[in-house]
């Protein structure tokens, strides 16, 4: 039985994992870099150990230091969260070797799913539909041209070691093929140290839908339905929801079964996610598997009523799943907005800084997973995400209204955030109608960047607040009256008298 868990992560997810640990009566151990001494996860945990300097490479990605901290603290398990070492097979193997439970799948599943070409081959063998394209790496341009003739344009050239939106190149015209191919190869080499690339058909107006999987070590695999993640910027998700407005019960059942099949094909154990690309006419293809907890896991937790971190720990303990597929159902609708410290008007440039004030929303049907507080300085070294807002409603309309209310209540000063941008998305017709795909932000760019009307009166309120604040500040820095120097009047008098005498 796991009694103490080291959380090899930071930020909101570290706090999220520790919360479940606390509920389960498990002690939690935080690790932190020099930049994170004041971070919330360090304060929340029962124990905390420094693992090195601020850059991730020297701290949160430093396997040796993390294993050391686990040994010193006597942690019997390590939860990797998401990002950092969560999909690192070498780390999972190392934990095994040290006799520490890695809360996640076996290194085999991580390796298989981590290499896109091997993953494609494995999925095809398991009867899971993949995007039409190659199953082997492509070495020369002639071969690439042959493939293109076979599957037709447009295509995507992808790095086998890539993922998370990195190492992809879109080819729309045949004359771009040569240069794009060479570029993709050299980029893959630079970014991942592996120049293997493959070719996939590019799905027009795609939807990004994923299925949550839970698998125990007794051969039970269930899915916890879908999450719709099509609203993305720079290939990164911004808003996720479940159920997907695109889904119907028939497709849901079919895709869910396919997801379970995919997980079985790699002997999966733990919580994982099968990502699919779905076309407008509801053709679906396996895209990749994330062998970890996802950022957007709370929407599933809310609608299905399962604590995924708790289940991860149960599975790591060797316990069977406490429910079967037929016990699970979706109740209501849940939406998650990711709040980033960034400037949406300036190409989503990150905006780290000191939080001078924060008020997080509360109230019915709302969850707020964050880690920042008043006076906290967001470090420049890590991800700009500061909070996840999760709303729930009986219907999708209610969940949207509730999210709008939460965004209105969310007050943060000191850093720029995308809150207003998210509010505008909630007001967009395409979003309200649930008719959107991964091109949503591009398509609605004008509406999303249009400034809302602020009339003269509203402008005057802005002027007024700044002006009054300025005056108050001026009063405060007026030189104080010299009451404490009253005694010196005698000195002055004496000096004057001396001068006069001369």
């Amino acid at each position, binding site marked *: 039985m796991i009694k103490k868990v080291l959380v090899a992560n930071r930020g909101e997810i570290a706090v999220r994992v520790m919360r479940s640990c606390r509920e389960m009566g498990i002690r939690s151990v935080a690790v932190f870099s020099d930049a994170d001494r004041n971070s919330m996860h360090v304060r929340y945990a029962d124990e905390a150990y420094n693992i090195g300097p601020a850059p991730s490479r020297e701290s949160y990605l430093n396997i040796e230091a993390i294993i050391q901290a686990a040994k010193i603290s006597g942690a019997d398990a390590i939860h990797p969260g998401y990002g950092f070492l969560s999909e690192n097979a070498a780390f999972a193997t190392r934990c095994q070797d040290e006799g520490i439970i890695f809360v996640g799948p076996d290194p085999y599943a991580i390796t298989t799913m981590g290499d896109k070409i091997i993953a494609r081959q494995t999925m095809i063998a398991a009867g899971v539909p993949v995007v039409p394209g190659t199953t082997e790496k492509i070495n020369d341009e002639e071969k690439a041209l042959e493939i293109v003739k076979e599957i037709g344009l447009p295509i995507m050239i992808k790095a086998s070691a890539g993922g998370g939106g990195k190492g992809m190149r879109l080819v729309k015209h045949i004359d771009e093929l040569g240069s794009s191919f060479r570029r993709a190869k050299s980029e893959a080499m630079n970014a991942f140290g592996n120049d293997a690339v493959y070719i996939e058909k590019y799905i027009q107006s795609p939807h990004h839908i994923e299925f949550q999987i839970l698998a125990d070590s007794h051969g039970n695999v269930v899915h916890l339905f879908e999450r719709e993640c099509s609203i993305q910027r720079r290939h990164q998700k911004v808003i996720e929801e479940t159920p997907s407005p695109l889904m119907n019960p028939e497709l849901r059942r079919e895709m869910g079964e396919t997801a379970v099949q995919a997980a079985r094909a790699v002997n999966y154990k733990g919580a994982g996610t099968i990502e699919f690309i779905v076309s407008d006419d509801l053709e679906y293809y396996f895209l990749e598997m994330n062998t970890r907890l996802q950022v957007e896991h709370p929407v599933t937790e809310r609608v299905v009523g399962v604590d995924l971190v708790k289940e991860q720990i149960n599975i790591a303990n060797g316990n069977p799943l406490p429910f079967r597929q037929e016990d699970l159902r979706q109740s209501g609708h849940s939406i998650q907005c990711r709040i980033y410290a960034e400037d949406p008007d300036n190409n989503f*440039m990150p905006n780290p*800084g000191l939080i001078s004030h924060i008020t997080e929303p509360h109230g019915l049907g709302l969850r707020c997973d964050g880690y920042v507080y008043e006076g906290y300085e967001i470090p420049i070294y890590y991800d700009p995400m500061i909070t996840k807002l999760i709303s729930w409603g009986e219907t999708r309309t209610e969940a949207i209204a509730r999210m709008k209310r939460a965004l209105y209540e969310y007050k943060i000063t000191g850093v720029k955030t995308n809150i207003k941008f998210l509010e505008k998305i909630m007001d967009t017709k395409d979003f309200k109608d649930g008719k959107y795909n991964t091109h949503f932000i591009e398509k609605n760019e004008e509406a999303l960047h249009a400034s809302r009307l602020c009339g003269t009166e509203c402008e005057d309120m802005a002027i007024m607040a700044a*002006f009054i604040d300025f005056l108050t500040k001026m009063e405060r820095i007026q030189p104080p009256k010299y009451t404490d120097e009253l005694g010196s009047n005698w000195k002055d008098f004496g000096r004057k008298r001396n001068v006069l005498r001369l």
Partner: protein
Amino acid sequence: MAYEVNLEHRSAKVELLNRAGNKVLLDIDGHKYDVDIAMVEKGVYSIIYNGHSYNVELIEGDSSKKYIVNTFAKTFNVEIVDAESKYISSRSQGMEAEEENSVVSPMPGKVVRIPVSVGDAVTAGQTLIVVEAMKMQSEFKASHDKKVLEILVKEGDTVNAHQLMMKLE
């Protein structure tokens, strides 16, 4: 005493007529406002005007006279112009050309790469410096054909927002 307050491109004349605690009487561009204004939390003002409740958030800019102001609908840059700022702005006419000649970091971050050296002739669009913050790299490019005059940071340095990193000619 009347102040000038700049809100984006609008320049407003603002005068405090009376102030008793939270009750403030103001004149903004000839319009009289009788309001109840209070700083309810650090950086957050609540204004009650004609029974309407407004919330305004302030983020102090690089000087005590500059603010980024969030209203419900919109975000503004606001600057209070007093005698001192007037004097400075009267002296800095024609500073715009100078701006083109300096590379300033818009955010705190870390210098990843400086592909140019002092004395290099650079062409418009050429990358001068790469700064990384929060896992995202931003490239700063030359706007015109220039020459690198001075580099004030080195690779691996941490930079603050608005820090001057490079001078061009």
